[in-house]
C-alpha cells in the first residue's frame, strides 16, 4: 500500500480543477496532433486505392471517427449531466455543457463528410436511410440541449433542465435508432464488426489513428472549454482572482 493517496473529490471543486485542467490540456492536445498527422499520412499515402470507390473512400477516415465520437459524446454528456443533477456537482454540469458543443460539432462533421462521400459513392448528396437519419436526429437532440441551456438565465436551473432533457434523450436514442431502421434501410452493412473485418489493414490503421486523434482532441477541447465555463460562472469567487493573476 502506498501512502500517497489521491483525493479525487478534491478535483470536483472548480477551484482545484481549473489549474489541473490547464496542465492536462497539452497532455491530450499534443498526442492528438501527432496521431492526426500520422493518421493523415497513412490515410493518404499508405492505404491503397479502393477497387470500387476509388480515392473518394478516404473521406471515411475522418467520417467514421467523427460519427463514433459524436455518438459517444452524447452518452458522456448525459452521464455528466446526470451526475451533476443527482449529486449537485457543479463541475459535472459544466462538463456536460462543455461536451455538448464538441459533440454537436463532431456530429455535424460526420453529416457533412458523409454527404460528401455519398455524392461519388451513391450519386446523391443525401439518402433517407437509417443511419443518416438517426445521425441527423442526434444533431437535433444536441441542438435542443444547447438551445434549452442557453435560453435559461439561471445557471442552476439550466443545468438541471438540461440534465432531464439529456437523460430523456439517451433513453430515446435506441428507440429512435430502431424505429428509423425499421422505417428504411438502404445503407451498406456494417463494415466493422467482431467477426468479419472487411478492410485492408492499412485502412483500418488510418481509421483507428484518426479515431484516437478525435478522442484526444475532444478531451483537450472539452477541458479548454470547461475552463472558460468555470471562469465565466465563478468570476466572483476569490480564488479566481488569484488563479487569473
Amino acid at each position, binding site marked *: 500500500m502506498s501512502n500517497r493517496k489521491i483525493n479525487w473529490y478534491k478535483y470536483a471543486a472548480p477551484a482545484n480543477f481549473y489549474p489541473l485542467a490547464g496542465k492536462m490540456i497539452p497532455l491530450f492536445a499534443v498526442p492528438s496532433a501527432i496521431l492526426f498527422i500520422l493518421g493523415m499520412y497513412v490515410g493518404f499515402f499508405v492505404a491503397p486505392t479502393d477497387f470500387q470507390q476509388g480515392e473518394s473512400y478516404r473521406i471515411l477516415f475522418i467520417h467514421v471517427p467523427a460519427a463514433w465520437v459524436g455518438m459517444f459524446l452524447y452518452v458522456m454528456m448525459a452521464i455528466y449531466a446526470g451526475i451533476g443533477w443527482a449529486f449537485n456537482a457543479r463541475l459535472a454540469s459544466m462538463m456536460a455543457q462543455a461536451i455538448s458543443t464538441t459533440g454537436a460539432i463532431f456530429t455535424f462533421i460526420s453529416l457533412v463528410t458523409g454527404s460528401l462521400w455519398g455524392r461519388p459513392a451513391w450519386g446523391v448528396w443525401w439518402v433517407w436511410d437509417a443511419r443518416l437519419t438517426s445521425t441527423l436526429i442526434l444533431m*437535433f437532440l444536441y*441542438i*435542443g440541449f444547447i438551445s*434549452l441551456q442557453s*435560453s*435559461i438565465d439561471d445557471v442552476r436551473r439550466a443545468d438541471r*433542465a438540461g440534465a*432531464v*432533457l439529456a437523460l430523456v434523450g439517451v433513453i430515446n436514442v435506441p428507440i429512435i435508432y430502431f*424505429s428509423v431502421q425499421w422505417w428504411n434501410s438502404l445503407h451498406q452493412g456494417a463494415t466493422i464488426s467482431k467477426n468479419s473485418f472487411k478492410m485492408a489493414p492499412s485502412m483500418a490503421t488510418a481509421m483507428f489513428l484518426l479515431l484516437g486523434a478525435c478522442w484526444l482532441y475532444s478531451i483537450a477541447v472539452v477541458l479548454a472549454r470547461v475552463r472558460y465555463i468555470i471562469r465565466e460562472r465563478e468570476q466572483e469567487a476569490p480564488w479566481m482572482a488569484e488563479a487569473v493573476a
Partner: protein
Amino acid sequence: MFGWLVYRDLILAWRRRADVLATVFFFIIVTSLFPLGIGPERELLRSIAPGVVWVAALLASMLSLGRIFGNDYQDGTLEQLVLTPQPTYLVVLAKVLAHWIVSEIPLVVIAPVLGLQFGLSQNTLLTVMISLLLGTPVLSVIGSIGAALTLGLRAANVLVALLVLPLYIPVLIFGSGAVQATVTGTSPQAWLLLLAATLIVSLVFAPWATSAALKISVE
C-alpha cells in the same frame, strides 16, 4: 384528487373553447395545404396521406402543449399542486389526461374526414383512427416533458418544438407506418403493436421525467 384535477382542467378548457377549436382548425388547414401545394392527382395524394395526416397531428398537438401547465404556472396554482402531499407523478398524469381529452380527441375524431379528402378507403380510415388513438397519448405525455422544461422561458413555444419534435419521431414512424401498411394492403398489426408498446413505456416513464422537470421549473 386525480379525478378532481382532470375535471377542473376540463372545465377550464370548456370555458376557453376557442383555444381548443383553434388547434382543430390548425390541423384541418395544414392538411388542406398539402393538396394545394402538391397538386390534385389522386394517386399521389393517396400515397402521401398517411404522412400528411400524422405530421399535421404532430404539429397540432405540439401547438397546444403550452396549455398543459402554462396558465397554472402563471397564476401560481402549479406551485401549490407540486407542494401537495400527493405524488407529482399523479398531478402530471391527470393534467396530461385532461390535455389529451381536450386537444387530441378532437383530432382523432376529425382525422377520418380529412382522410376522405385524400381519397383513403374506409379500411384505411379505421387504421388512421386506431393509430391516432394509440399515438396521441404518447404525444401528450412526451410533450409534457418539453412543456414543463420550458415553463416561463422566453420564446418557449419555439423551444418546445426543438426539444419535443425529435422525441416524437418514433411515434410518427409507427403511426404513419400503420396507415401506409393498410394503404398498400398489408396488415398494420405490427405497427399498431409497436405503437401500443411505445404508449405503455412512455406512460410509465415520461410522467416521472415531467415531474422532475416541473420541480426544477417551479422552485
